[in-house]
């Protein structure tokens, strides 16, 4: 895979939240890229910085968060062309014309269950109309109109054409009777159907990349299975990249080709999915994989669990942030020296002193 295939390149990204009690390093040195047509999985527990990273890619970090270092490069390429233009997203005006073309138009996104999402995040001054098409459905408007509006905002089509595309998109995401459903209101749909509508909105502009942040977490397994199938099908048909954020290891194993593991704002490991599951290097990844119950034949009586609690983000441990919970903790080293990002054979990256000469 050559560098030409890189779509989004995140370099040493740092995002900090200046809250009254101190500064929280929500993302601290994230470095990875997303290639065209590829699915990159990002896993980690709540508060590890995975969603903030996703929002930084769209230059919409919620206040009081701020990008304090690093950059996000977007390799923009017009459809059918081989000319690539490099855009540094972190440098763009968050309300500017360019970023608004990219958001929703070239990089689409879906978040958790759209009507009940707890904290819809807006950047300062983001136009409500746009924010709405980006994050959630407006309860009082027909779903078809909402899709059509997004299409018109990013593609040069007439109102009638936009409506036809909307119907076609609803059909593709598996909504029964799309000609009628296009005129229903969000509350008339079930949770699974609403999430499918959100996918239709996100994909209606044929984005180069889709950011999916826990898109199936609130759904039942049977609906989840349908949504994952739809996403994969659509990805193949338009060669779209997906950044898939989840805490569900089963979902990520099915969807991702490559996985980044995050813990307390730091990326601790990155590898091809198969390597990560069969040969995890970082003690945190290993513990995570052992701590989930697996469906099938019953094996052990007890689950391996990670000791202790997730640390307070305002008072992070010294050295490696995972050391107080780590089964391979080396006194005098892990609590003093912060590990750096190391490349191991086979494009496997890890941040751990076990793999580092110090």
């Amino acid at each position, binding site marked *: 895979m050559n560098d030409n295939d890189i779509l989004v390149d995140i370099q040493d990204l740092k995002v900090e939240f200046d809250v009254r009690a101190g500064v929280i390093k929500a993302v601290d040195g994230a470095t990875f890229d997303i290639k065209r047509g590829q699915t990159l999985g990002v896993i980690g*527990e*709540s508060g590890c910085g995975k969603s903030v990273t996703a929002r930084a890619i769209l230059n919409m970090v919620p206040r009081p968060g701020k990008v304090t270092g690093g950059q996000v490069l977007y390799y923009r390429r017009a459809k059918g062309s081989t000319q690539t233009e490099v855009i540094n997203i972190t440098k763009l005006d968050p309300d500017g014309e360019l970023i608004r073309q990219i958001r929703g138009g070239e990089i689409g996104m879906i978040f958790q269950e759209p009507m009940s999402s707890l904290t819809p995040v807006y950047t300062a001054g983001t136009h409500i109309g746009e924010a709405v098409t980006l994050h959630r459905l407006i309860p009082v408007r027909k779903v078809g109109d909402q899709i059509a509006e997004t299409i018109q905002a990013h593609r040069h089509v007439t109102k009638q054409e936009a409506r036809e595309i909307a119907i076609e998109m609803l059909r593709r995401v598996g909504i*029964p009777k799309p000609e009628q459903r296009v005129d229903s209101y969000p509350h008339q749909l*079930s*949770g*699974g*159907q609403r999430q499918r509508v959100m996918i239709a909105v996100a994909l209606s502009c044929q984005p180069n990349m889709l950011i999916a942040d826990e898109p199936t977490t609130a759904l*039942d*397994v*049977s609906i*989840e*299975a*349908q949504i*994952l*199938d739809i996403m994969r099908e659509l990805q193949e048909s338009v060669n779209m990249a997906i950044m898939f954020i989840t*805490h*569900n*290891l*089963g*979902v990520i*194993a*099915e969807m991702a080709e490559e996985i980044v593991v995050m813990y307390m704002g730091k990326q601790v490991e990155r590898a091809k*999915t*198969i390597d990560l*599951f*069969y040969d995890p290097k970082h003690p945190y990844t290993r*513990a*995570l*994989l052992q*701590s*989930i*119950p*697996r*469906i*099938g*034949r*019953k094996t052990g*009586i*007890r*689950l*391996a*669990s*990670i000791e202790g*609690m*997730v640390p307070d983000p305002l008072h992070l441990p010294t050295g490696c942030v995972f050391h107080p919970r780590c089964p391979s903790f080396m006194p005098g080293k892990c609590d003093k020296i912060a590990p750096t990002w190391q490349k191991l054979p086979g494009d496997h990256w890890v941040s751990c002193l076990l793999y580092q000469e110090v």
Partner: protein
Amino acid sequence: MAMQGSKAGNILLDVKGLKKYFPIQKGFLRRVVGYVKAVDDVSFFVREGETLGLVGESGCGKTTAGRTIIRLYEPTAGHVLFRSRQLTPDGSETFVDLADLDRQQMKKVRREIAMIFQDPINSLNPRMTVGDIVAEPMVIHGQYRRPESEAIIVDLLQRVGLRPDHLRRYPHEFSGGQRQRIGIARALSLNPRLVICDEPVSALDVSIQAQTLNLLQDLQRDFHLSYIFVAHDLSVVQHISDRVAVMYVGKMVEMADAEELYLYPLHPYTEALMSAVPKADPKYKSQRIIMQGDVADPSNPPPGCYFHPRCRYAKEICSQKAPEFRELKPDHFVACHLAEELKLRGV
């Protein structure tokens, strides 16, 4: 009480034909225009010391079933037989029908049945200290005696992995996993025999989930508890349960030993549900059975077997006659007309 066949054994709770209908009211006069059959003629039992997992998709009635058992909801019909020690003068065991008890009797029996809730944030009173939260059931039941009870509470907190000095703190000072531990300590404060766990780990992070599941298992062994474990995560349920019951639109469709159910399901719904669970193994080639359409509307269910419009094996009889919930193999119950002839795939 006569028990047939393999059902004999140390039955602690025996639910028979339980129904909970919620009326749908319309208009100014709030006329009842129909019913949501949240739990519709459900039968199952729990043996002493075991964990019965109750699974199904959202809206299938699993939570309602759990709550109707301890009469947080009044049952519409049916019997809930529970082997209680509270209603006899000498503390000997006798089966009582929880659906028939009056308030006074029910309050006594509630000492033996506790509940753990899903949301560890909203199920704890933010204005009470941890000590008061754990003590509250004792106070309500008039069992709080100053020095002894305090010692019991400290002991309980330590047992669930909290520290004695947490006693005077408030819920907001704790993380989600710790709050769930507080809820568990509260549930155990009256020394119950049956604990109804309603999605106890689904709001927790993966690493905290494993700790909590291990804790529940340790407590079960040490305090000789029986659990009804209501959850939608099939891998968690398989891990913790001895037996598993599957519900669909208010009906029980299958119940069997956990491993038996997962490896050799007899109901097409169980088969489809299992196949949809994403496996944490990138080498696994998924062979999902995609169920067509949406879950049936519990206020207007289809005729015959409720699952027939989505079932890929459905025959004529399935749309005409509701299948009976029967014991096809020893300890393996199923409600499907075709259970004998179908060869279904497990996980």
